[in-house]
């Protein structure tokens, strides 16, 4: 088993599935049916294969595992190099799982161009898995930027009315980031003579150069996260994207920024990372407070959840730059949790959107009456988003808050204020949609969740509680890699030694 190119299999299998779908011919209804089936089976098998990655993963090792390395562009010393460590492992699984979930979730809701839709999502899966496995900067960059294409298409073809504006905005932001990131890659290549990520982690760059490289990468990652004030593309993109697109956008694509900081900025540019940490703190704190207030006043459900994502990702970026084991492990688990919870919340919005075709909060009222199961599912994810202990949202939050408190108590205080503000806008959203009396005529006939919707939510509900009650299952495999990362940035200072200072 172990000599199989497991990572490449998981990465490219969805592409094979996409090719199959491309070959399907015939009547529209049959094509749609078959496209759905092929997409489902492909994503399911991919997910099962990705579980094998977990099974073959050795938690005690800090380095990269399941490594595949072959020359790719030999003249430039660029390799096809894949591997996972404790930091990337869970993101791979998150991507494969969410793909299955969105394909099930959009079983009935997507009726136009089903074939192309499924292809787009399978291509997207390949790129998502690839980006987390890539161990070569060029390879990483190809996946990293490539993801945008299916995303553009998903928003552009299946999106809402203002999709051109949204994708244009997204494009402008990412373009600048991408160009600067590419420049950084070139500079690093010229300096170190390689684009191999593990090698670059061992390379020490001049401190001044580090700062320039760091800023160039920051431009790219900060847009992806997104950090304040580079966040304004996100609410528009989410609002225009179809449900499944929002799920993957919030669930996986936003994590690329955080992953980028962990994979590149911290280990390769440690001095610059410590130098710029206050900048990150400042922007993150602004993000938490600012976007929470903005979220409070939203009238569109998707926009509200989009703004809440910015606030939650603010906690994550604080955690990454704590930099200590609590903060970093906390930020990883917070990213996983956010991927599941905000993805699920977008699906929650999608459920009623499919029925009433409106995202306006004021359009809904008293849904608990007709949709008890829906109310329960919404409640679970709402509470997870608020960070209730016992759900996944709490673990990352507490680790990051305790972690950052060791470094800077003011940042901890402001980050903790998000606990109140986050609860305010989520509870208010829930109260305005689910509670109250059912007065609107068309809502009186609204139907509770369909079987496919229940199946799509089920694994996410299980994970929310599993991560909340037994997070060790997720934390233990990442411990060795995170410790290693802390050694690389030379910040492996224990909290106790800080206390005695």
């Amino acid at each position, binding site marked *: 088993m172990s000599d199989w*190119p497991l990572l490449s299999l998981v990465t490219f299998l969805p592409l094979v599935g996409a090719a199959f779908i491309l070959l399907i011919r015939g009547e529209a209804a049959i094509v749609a049916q078959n496209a759905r089936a092929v997409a489902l089976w492909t994503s399911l098998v991919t997910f099962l294969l990705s579980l094998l990655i977990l099974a073959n993963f050795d938690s005690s090792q800090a380095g990269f595992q399941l490594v595949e390395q072959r020359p790719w562009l030999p003249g430039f010393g660029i390799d*096809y190099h894949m591997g996972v460590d404790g930091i990337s492992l869970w993101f791979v699984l998150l991507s494969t799982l969410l793909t299955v979930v969105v394909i099930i979730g959009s079983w009935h809701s997507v009726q136009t161009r089903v074939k192309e839709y499924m292809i787009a999502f399978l291509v997207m899966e390949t790129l998502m898995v690839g980006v987390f496995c890539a161990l070569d900067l060029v390879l990483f960059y190809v996946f990293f930027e490539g993801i945008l*294409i299916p995303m553009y298409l998903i928003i552009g073809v299946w999106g809402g009315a203002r999709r051109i504006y949204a994708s244009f905005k997204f494009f402008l932001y990412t373009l600048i980031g991408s160009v600067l990131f590419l420049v950084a890659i070139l500079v690093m290549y010229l300096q170190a003579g390689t684009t191999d990520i593990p090698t670059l982690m061992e390379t020490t760059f001049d401190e001044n150069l580090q700062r320039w490289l760091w800023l160039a990468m920051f431009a790219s990652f900060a847009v992806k996260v997104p950090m304040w004030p580079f966040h304004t593309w996100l609410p528009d993109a989410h609002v225009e994207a179809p449900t499944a697109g929002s799920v993957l956008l919030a669930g996986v694509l936003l994590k690329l920024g955080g992953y980028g900081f962990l994979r590149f900025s911290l280990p390769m540019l440690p001095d610059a990372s410590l130098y710029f940490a206050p900048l990150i703190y400042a922007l993150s704190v602004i993000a938490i407070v600012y976007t929470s207030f903005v979220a409070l006043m939203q009238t569109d459900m998707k926009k509200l959840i989009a703004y809440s994502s910015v606030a939650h990702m603010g906690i994550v970026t604080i955690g990454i730059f704590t930099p200590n084991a609590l903060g970093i492990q906390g930020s990883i688990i917070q990213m996983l949790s956010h991927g599941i919870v905000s993805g699920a919340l977008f699906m929650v919005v999608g459920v009623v959107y499919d029925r009433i075709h409106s995202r306006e909060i004021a359009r809904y009222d008293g849904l608990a009456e007709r949709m008890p199961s829906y109310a329960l599912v919404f409640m679970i994810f709402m509470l997870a988003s608020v960070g209730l202990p016992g759900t996944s949202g709490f673990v990352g939050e507490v680790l990051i808050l305790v972690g950052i408190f060791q470094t800077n108590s003011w940042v901890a205080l402001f980050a903790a204020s998000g606990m*109140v503000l986050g609860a305010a806008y989520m509870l208010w959203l829930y*109260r305005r949609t689910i*509670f109250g009396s059912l007065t609107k005529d068309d809502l009186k006939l609204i139907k509770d969740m369909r079987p496919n919707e229940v199946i799509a939510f089920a694994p996410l509900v299980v994970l929310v509680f599993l991560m909340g009650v*037994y*997070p060790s299952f997720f934390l*233990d495999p990442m411990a060795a890699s995170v410790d290693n990362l802390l050694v690389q940035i030379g910040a492996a200072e224990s909290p106790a030694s800080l206390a005695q200072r």
Partner: protein
Amino acid sequence: MLYVILVFAPLVGAIVAGLFGRQIGDRGAQIVTCGLMGLSALFSVIAIFSTVGAEPFRVPLFTWMNVATFEVDWALRIDALSGVMMFVVSFISFFIHVYSVGYMSHDKSIPRFMSYLSLFTFAMLMLVTSDNLIQLFFGWEGVGVASYLLIGFWYTKPSACAAAIKAFLVNRVGDVGLMLGIAVCYLLFDSVQYDVIFAGAAAMADATVVVFGGEFHALTVVGILLFIGAMGKSAQLGLHTWLPDAMEGPTPVSALIHAATMVTAGVFLVARFSPVYEYAPVALAMVAFIGASTAIFAATIGLTQFDIKRVIAYSTCSQLGYMFFACGVGAYSAGIFHLYTHAFFKALLFLGAGSVIHAMSDEQDMRKMGGIWRKIPVTYAMMWIGTLALVGFPFTAGFYSKDAILEAAWASTNSFHLYAFWLGITAAVLTAFYSGRLIFMTFHGPCRADEHVQSHIHESPKVMTIPLGVLAAGALLAGFFGYGMIAEDGSWWAGAIFSHPDNTVLHDLHYVPLWVKLSPIVAMAVGLGLSYLFYMRMTEMPGRVASALKPLHTFFYNKWYFDELYDRIFVRPAKALGLGLWRGGDQAIIDRFGPDGVAAAALATARRASRLQTGFVYHYAFAMLIGVAFLVSWYMMVGRG
């Protein structure tokens, strides 16, 4: 195993009733939740007997999270303190479950109600048996959510929804303090485990910590931050505004959560952290000051309210103030003793009030009651027992615990001890007055309800009056059985509540002057006598006094204008800020000078710019796809070789 079943049985009940309520039906849900709760209550009786004076031990379950030195387990800490708390929670919860079968019999979502009640009980049990701060936080937030769900149980009522959200948010403000307190503990002790913290507290007595830009006495910082959390949960002055509104929930909820158990979690926290507070006199002074202030503040409001449940709610708030200043003056065990007696008589009062409301066709305004004592004699008797215990009538449960608290306040060396004593005595007069007022207005005088309501007045069924009887027995007798809690050698606690060797308040309280010993009884007699005079003999007096002291009465009646103040300084600015940042920040500044500005500039220079851009995306896409295809085919060929 006994303790595991004790704690988790309610959770099982909650899950079964909550998820399979439709399958097992109303009756099934009641049987399952009450049955499992009964089991838990039975075990809790065993628990209190086996933990008194016994050494603490822990029942580890499994690892929760384990990052670097941040090691957190799911585990139960069993000692005399958690023993008392488990007994109070499980025992009272069981009788409130039973009472709810009768009280909620006309409701259409009985399984949901029973499920929430059991869920609450589980969370509360996790809170009191926690063996580390993170698990405490789990229970802390868990009871908060259960409270939120139960306050908003009748979710079609806008006022109930608003009260539910308010309760959760005000509590969250306190939780920020608690969370930061946890972070400081970890910073100081490198652990969040109680054992480690308590063992290391003495060594940290003189340590300082640098937080929030200054250097402070470390344990004082811990004490104050934890107390901020306690203030939220226990509705102390400043963070109290949610508790009266929480009366929107069904009455059994008010009895269980907002009187007997959840709101006392803050007192439990302070007593649990006695090993830390004993080395943090400044924090203790703050506890005493806030507690005593709340005791009098809430009592003044209680004087003027007309909603029967709100009077009792403010009374709860005030009694919680007593518990806190007891802890503040160093008599933690007296605080817990009062918590334990209060749980019985306050639950009794609420359930009695529920029985009245039930009889009066859901009327809660005391101005529309009166003269009904002959029609509901059992409820009437029960309410008298609860009232006597609350005002501290000799030999009832409240008499022992309130006396101990006031004597301790006099005997203590805390800088606010006399403040606490005098405010405590004054509040005792007010307590007796509003309690008498409640009884006389509700049960005596002419009946002010309309014909229709009057014709329906009836005594509650047995399933409701039997729990009342049990709690009444507790309200009369709990004082005798719990008196050992305040024994000066601390043998009941076996170290579960820590007293510094210099803290001799439990000894000194027996040697206070005679007038101090008598003053609580005098206060009670004055208060009850005045209320008898005002509401039975000279019924025009209340109106006259109210108009004579118009400004003061209006101030009290409007609850010192806290809600209006908070609305002005928090709620409205928050909304304005949100709108301003969105329209002003995101749209007017960031977008205008960011993407939209760039786009406009591009359009101005080249009209085809936007079309070019869109075209570029597809070019880009095409090139990338070819690249990916190339990559795959190349890899397949080379990869095989």
